């Protein structure tokens, strides 16, 4: 009985810590989905590109750590701009007559933009891998060399700190979006882009800035995770995308704050699945949960009209 309780507690702590990190990773993706209605499938790939670019320069010139992080963020922003131009800009135009378009048309533009973003994902990932062909790359590490032990429960306090920092960043960003002037601009631009233009907003520019912010956040989150991991592989981009996607959408994907709950839930579910059913179950449960929650969100009536 006691062992069970200890394992349960360990699984809970591990799950919450992982979950906080997932929320942090998913913040940028959630931001661009909630404020811009963009599903950016190149999300992880842009950060991967930034990381590999930074590492390549680091291997040449031995950059100090803060410089490396800045370089990574900058390169990620460049890649984000590339994605913006190729996939998303000019695809949210709205008719002058009513400010909105028939639902079918909006859907198609969104889908097309998403499709273009997966094409760029393919591009960026391959360029990154060509830049640094070895599968495992070292990343400067600031990981702690020990962990806290409370009885038989072990807590990696460096990761715990990262999770707390990550959740804090999510919370602050959500507050900022809801209460700041710039946050209002972001929200207005997507809530009704014609009304926004009539109010004097340069909608294209505002949306671009929001997208860059999302990209910047993703780069910072990625760096913070890698600083504790000490290494990176090309799978990191997909990891960021998938974890971030689930964290952002698990609780509906309607608000920025939900990425926190989504991330924590994801972490817990994975952790319990691994404890109770093994490592493979962990991955399976992730996708099963995502699938079930997505399907539950849109009841289908007989006539095929969505609620």
């Amino acid at each position, binding site marked *: 009985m006691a062992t069970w309780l200890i394992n349960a507690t360990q699984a809970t702590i591990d799950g919450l810590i992982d979950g906080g990190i997932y929320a942090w990773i998913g913040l940028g993706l959630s931001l661009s989905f909630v404020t811009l209605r963009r*599903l950016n499938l190149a999300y992880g790939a842009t950060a991967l590109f930034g990381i590999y670019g930074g590492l390549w320069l680091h291997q040449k010139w031995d950059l100090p750590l803060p410089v490396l992080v800045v370089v990574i963020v900058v390169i990620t922003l460049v890649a984000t701009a590339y994605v913006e131009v*190729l*996939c998303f800009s000019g695809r949210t135009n709205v008719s002058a007559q009513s400010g909105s378009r*028939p*639902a*079918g*048309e909006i*859907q*198609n533009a*969104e*889908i*097309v933009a*998403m*499709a*273009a973003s*997966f*094409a*760029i*994902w*393919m*591009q960026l*990932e*391959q*360029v990154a891998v*060509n830049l640094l062909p070895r599968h495992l790359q070292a990343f400067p590490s600031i990981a702690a060399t020990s962990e806290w032990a409370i009885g038989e429960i072990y807590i990696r306090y460096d990761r715990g700190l990262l999770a707390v920092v990550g959740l804090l960043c999510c919370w602050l960003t959500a507050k900022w979006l809801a209460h700041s002037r710039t946050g209002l601009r972001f929200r207005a631009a997507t809530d009704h882009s014609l009304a926004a233009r009539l109010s004097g907003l340069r909608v294209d520019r505002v949306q671009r800035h929001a997208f860059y912010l999302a990209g910047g956040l993703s780069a910072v989150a990625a760096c913070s995770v890698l600083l504790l991991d000490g290494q990176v592989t090309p799978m990191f981009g997909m990891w960021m995308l998938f974890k971030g*996607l689930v964290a952002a*959408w698990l609780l509906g994907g309607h608000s920025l704050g939900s990425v926190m709950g989504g991330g924590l839930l994801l972490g817990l579910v994975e952790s319990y699945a691994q404890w109770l059913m093994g490592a*493979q179950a962990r*991955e*399976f449960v992730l*996708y*099963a949960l*995502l*699938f079930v929650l*997505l*399907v539950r*969100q*849109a*009841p*289908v*009536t*007989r*006539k*095929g*009209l*969505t609620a």
Partner: protein
Amino acid sequence: MSSYAIGLSTDMAIMSFLALAAYLLLLVGRISFGLQAFFGFGAYVAGIGSTMLNWPFPIAVVFAVVIGAIVSAAVAWPTMGLSGLRYAIASLAFAEMARIALSQWVWQVRIDERLIGPNGVDGFRDIRWVLTNDITDTQYLVICLGALACCVAVMWYFERRRIGTAMRAIGFDETLAQHMGLNTHHIRVMTATIAGAIAALGGALYAHRTTYIEPAVFEPMLGVHSVGYALIGGLGAPFAPLLGVILDLGLLNAFHDLAQWRMVIFGGLVAIFLRLKPRGLVDEKLFDSLRKGI
């Protein structure tokens, strides 16, 4: 034809099934990132049928197609009501579930003192129908091309009928289609069922070509590629997605130095096409003018 060319053509034919499946879904306005799952189901079922159950090859393939259709319909029913973005993610989630499940599944039987069958992450070896029946590479190519031609012909036939127009109407403007009285959900589910069946057919042929399949093959990039083929090749006619396959596999094999940049080129083409020609090379307009020209 050199054996290299025969091999390449067979690969192209097999990938074309996936491209056709993606094409069908694009017609009704949906992108699926999960077609690789049905490709995989078709491969496993056909492999089991021909190797472990000793069914004749055609029966194994047909059974694979039927299973692919059934599973696809079952998945499509709850997911086709989702918005385009959510559907794409749901299809991806399902495909990953399938891949992980396959990597856990072990079912082996003893045949001639060897264990044959799906062996979890290590895959399914010795799908040897082609070898034990002395089918030459050329003969197998003919089989694949024949199946492909049948698919394209059937699709061509139905596209000329009302159902083809209905599908495209849904893809262009779902709300308008509903107002015209089309049951968009039923039509989308039907389309997905057929797409799953075609993908499974491709998978069945794939399993017997390579004689060895493993779950890692049926990963998201495979599905993503198939969507890319349809997007580049075009949505104007059923043969159009095949152009995408020929472009990618042909270029890749023609210029081996480009292998390292294949994704960059392919991805770049998809993105450019989506900007300039969102309905692909052979879009409805071009196909119409081709038909009128002839």
